[in-house]
């Protein structure tokens, strides 16, 4: 099995290398085959009945050490090249801290790699959803106006990213985790920069230094862990810190997670990533990068005490509410999706922070289904941009008339984020129950509950509003109702199929009627919309006060973001500071 594990770690980099070399035709076949194999591995590993742990040979450790130095060095170089003070300074700080930590780390005999249940789920998402996105990207990237070499590089990077992700979810050594964390930062930096215009470079720099902060937090966690618990391994740390009062390492790790999850106030890096080609957003939001955050919290929340658990949940739910609210102010489709990702990550983190098996299950549900649904949505956002030339919600109006099937697919993806019986709904549903439960022992959790209730309502509102735009009639619907390119269509449709199939998973938590009834209703609605053609029924015009002219329609809009962003950021920062303080004193 360790072989399989090693394969899933090292096949992607190999594929990445292949992508760089192969001519386009063969490149595509190889990529599709590679994705297939990876997904197969992930599925096989998923059904593995036991935990796998092993350590890498010493030589590899040295390689990792060298890689670390190289990556940090590259960051320093990037800082110099872009004349970005934060990047340079952070790189230097990281270098110093890393050398200090690595130098003083004791020799431990523990597994570097641990394959537990959480990791198995993550494999599925990373390889399944990530794979679908890569396949989609194969065609998508061809329409970019760059040289073929860079297009290949793009695909290669995506593969490499998947590889890194595969390894990070199984990493048990914090040092290794740090390296991979930095590598994801690097990947995202390169991907965001892909189009190389001023905006892209600017946003890539921002993503870089913010994520470096996360790296720094991990280094700080390592340092703290070394001083108090003399280990740089997750499992050892958790077992030693369990019941202990001083939880600073965990607090720092949580901070790193917050940065990766782009929680407010770090939200700007993820939103800035929108400048890159759509597959980048898709892969960042669904399968990779940001998912590290809830995953990390899941990993370490076993060591949380009640206060830390509450504080992290508070940050999570607070961000859930505010990010959902800010999403309402956005018109750019991908940004709306971005904010909603941030919000849902907040909820995942809040759930993951509760040391309770059910909470972990809920968090996992959310992670998985959010990944699938968001992946699908981003792919569809890409189709909207490339195929229909639509980027803004206000332009979306009336699309349902032109391509009902496509819109039904989007509707399904949105539905999967709010409605029963889909996974994300299930997560929210369980969250409310869990928080209510927590409340009984820890009354302050009522605030977490309130935030999540409001957040989930606002999010629902957001999705409805968005969705209704597709069905909205407008005076100005342009373009033709052509079929969407198959190469775009299939990855998205595949993900949706997974979503639907996933509803089955909720059977344990929901009863049969609870699962089937909404499916039936949705199905009827969909079927009726597609099939109901009342030829014999007369048509009338819409009522316009007896006048004949055309209506000029528009949505209402809001400006929560510019009004409340500052306050939200300050509040979130205060809460995060409280976490560090809590880790120190409690």
């Amino acid at each position, binding site marked *: 099995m360790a072989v399989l594990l090693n394969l899933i770690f090292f096949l992607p980099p190999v594929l990445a290398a292949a992508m760089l070399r192969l001519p386009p035709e063969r490149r595509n076949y190889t990529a599709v085959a590679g994705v297939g194999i990876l997904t197969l591995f992930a599925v096989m590993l998923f059904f593995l009945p036991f935990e796998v742990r092993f350590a890498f040979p010493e030589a590899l450790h040295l390689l990792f050490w060298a890689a670390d130095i190289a990556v940090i060095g590259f960051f320093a170089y990037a800082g110099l090249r872009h004349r970005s003070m934060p990047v340079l300074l952070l790189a230097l700080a990281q270098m110093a801290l890393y050398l200090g930590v690595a130098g003083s780390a004791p020799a431990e005999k523990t597994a570097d790699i641990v394959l537990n249940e959480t990791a198995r789920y993550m494999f599925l998402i990373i390889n399944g959803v990530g794979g679908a996105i890569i396949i989609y990207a194969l065609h998508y990237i061809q329409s970019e106006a760059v040289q073929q070499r860079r297009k290949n590089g793009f695909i290669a990077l995506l593969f490499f990213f998947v590889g890194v992700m595969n390894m990070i979810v199984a990493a048990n050594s914090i040092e290794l985790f740090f390296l991979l964390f930095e590598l994801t930062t690097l990947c995202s930096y390169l991907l965001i920069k892909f189009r190389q215009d001023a905006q892209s470079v600017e946003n890539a720099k921002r993503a870089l230094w913010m994520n470096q902060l996360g790296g720094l937090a991990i280094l700080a966690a390592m340092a703290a862990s070394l001083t108090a618990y003399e280990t740089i391994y997750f499992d050892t740390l958790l077992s030693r810190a369990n019941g202990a009062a001083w939880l600073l390492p965990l607090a720092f790790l949580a901070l790193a997670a917050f940065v990766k999850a782009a929680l407010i106030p770090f939200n700007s890096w993820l939103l*800035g990533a929108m400048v890159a080609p759509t597959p980048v957003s898709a892969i960042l939001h669904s399968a990779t990068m940001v998912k590290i955050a809830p995953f990390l919290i899941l990993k370490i929340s076993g060591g949380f005490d009640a206060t830390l658990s509450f504080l992290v949940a508070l940050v999570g739910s607070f961000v859930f509410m505010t990010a959902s609210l800010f999403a309402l102010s956005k018109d750019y489709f991908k940004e709306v999706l971005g904010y909603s990702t941030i919000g849902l990550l907040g909820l995942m983190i809040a759930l993951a922070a509760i040391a309770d098996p059910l909470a972990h299950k809920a968090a996992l549900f959310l992670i998985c289904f959010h990944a699938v649904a968001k992946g699908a949505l981003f792919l569809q956002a890409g189709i909207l941009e490339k195929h229909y030339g639509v980027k803004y919600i206000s332009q979306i109006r009336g699309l349902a008339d032109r391509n009902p099937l496509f819109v039904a697919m989007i509707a399904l993806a949105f539905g999967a984020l709010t409605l029963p019986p889909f996974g994300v709904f299930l997560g929210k549903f369980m969250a409310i129950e869990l928080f209510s439960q927590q409340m009984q022992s820890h009354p302050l959790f009522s605030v977490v509950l309130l935030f999540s209730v409001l957040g989930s309502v606002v999010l629902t509102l957001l999705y409805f509003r968005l969705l209704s735009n597709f069905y909205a009639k407008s005076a100005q619907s342009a373009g033709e109702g052509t079929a969407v390119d198959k190469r775009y269509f299939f990855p998205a449709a595949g993900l949706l199929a997974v979503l639907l199939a996933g509803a089955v998973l909720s059977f344990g938590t929901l009863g049969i009627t609870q699962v089937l009834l909404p499916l039936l209703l949705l199905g009827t609605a969909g079927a009726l919309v597609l099939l109901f053609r009342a030829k014999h029924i007369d048509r009338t015009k819409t009522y316009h006060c*007896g006048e004949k002219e055309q209506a000029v329609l528009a949505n209402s*809009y809001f400006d929560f973001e510019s009004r409340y962003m500052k306050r939200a950021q300050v509040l979130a920062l205060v809460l995060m500071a409280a976490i560090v303080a809590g880790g120190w004193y409690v």
Partner: protein
Amino acid sequence: MSTTTKAVDMQIPLGAQHISLLEPVKFTFTTQNEKIVDVGSDVGFVHRGVEHACSSKFEFKQVGFVVARICGLCAITHSMCYTAGVEKLLDAQVTQKAKYLRTLLIELDRIHSHMLCLSHTCENAGFEAMFMSLMGDREPVMGLQEAITGNRVQFDYITIGGVTREFDAQTAQKIIQVLGQTQKKIEGYIEEFQNNWSLSKKFEGIGALSPEGAYEYNAIGPLARACGLQVDVRNGLDYLPYKEVGFTTITQTGGDIHARNMVRLYEILNSIKMCRNIVEGLPEGEIQTKVRGKPQGEVITRLEAPRGELMYYLKGENKKVLDRVRIKTPTFATIPAMIEIFKGQDYADAPAILASFDPCLSCTAK
């Protein structure tokens, strides 16, 4: 790359047909988030051509009945204003009793018209019960008008030289009794309009006109008086005995819907007082004097209709048909003000603001 949603304008039509409208008028509100930023209007739906008909088709004796049909709500003020003008041109004398009776009817009309306006404003503010209640309490007043003139709405009571009917002692008693009841009801409404929480949300500070704006836009009637302007044509009339029957000018400050409502409510009380004085102090005498001759010359007469100043300009050239009849109606001049007031308000308030103007498009467009 900040792409916060842009301000997109939505155009909300109100009219020509709309449930909150009694009369056809068309406003097109350009709104952002239901806030009105611009208003387009079309007020000409009810144009029938009365001015033209009055100087071509109808003889001057008939015109009184025609101009009454410019508007059913203040039909009596139209016929009064016209008749006063013609009487001036003919140099006719009218008995004191006829003058008193004319005033009585005009004030009764004001009572029912104000109550209607208030109830319509409440209906448009979504207060159905208040609409019902006011409409119910208005009925006795309508009954009085029918008892006196023989018709509930178009009284056709004033003729050149006097009035058509008088009433007996029994009716007089009934008038006093109904007025007493109505007064009590109105006092109740005054309290309710001041204290109802939801009405304060709907009316206070909404659709406000400043005193400056009132001068600027030539506001008249309750609209101006709600801004504190002392404008009431009844103050200086020579052909109706307002001074004797206890008229006072009612003003309020604030200029919002609430102030307009209060002006109307207090004016109803004042009208009730005047009516009572008239019925109790009705002079003896004939109600009709014979009038001869044909109108000759130019005259302007003014009268305070429920909605404000009504003006007639008549020009006769010693013929049966007048040379020119110019009617300036209360709402006519305030349409620019209305459009100004709408801006910056919520669309949700528009129907109530509109109703609180008590606009009369049928007379505006004639």
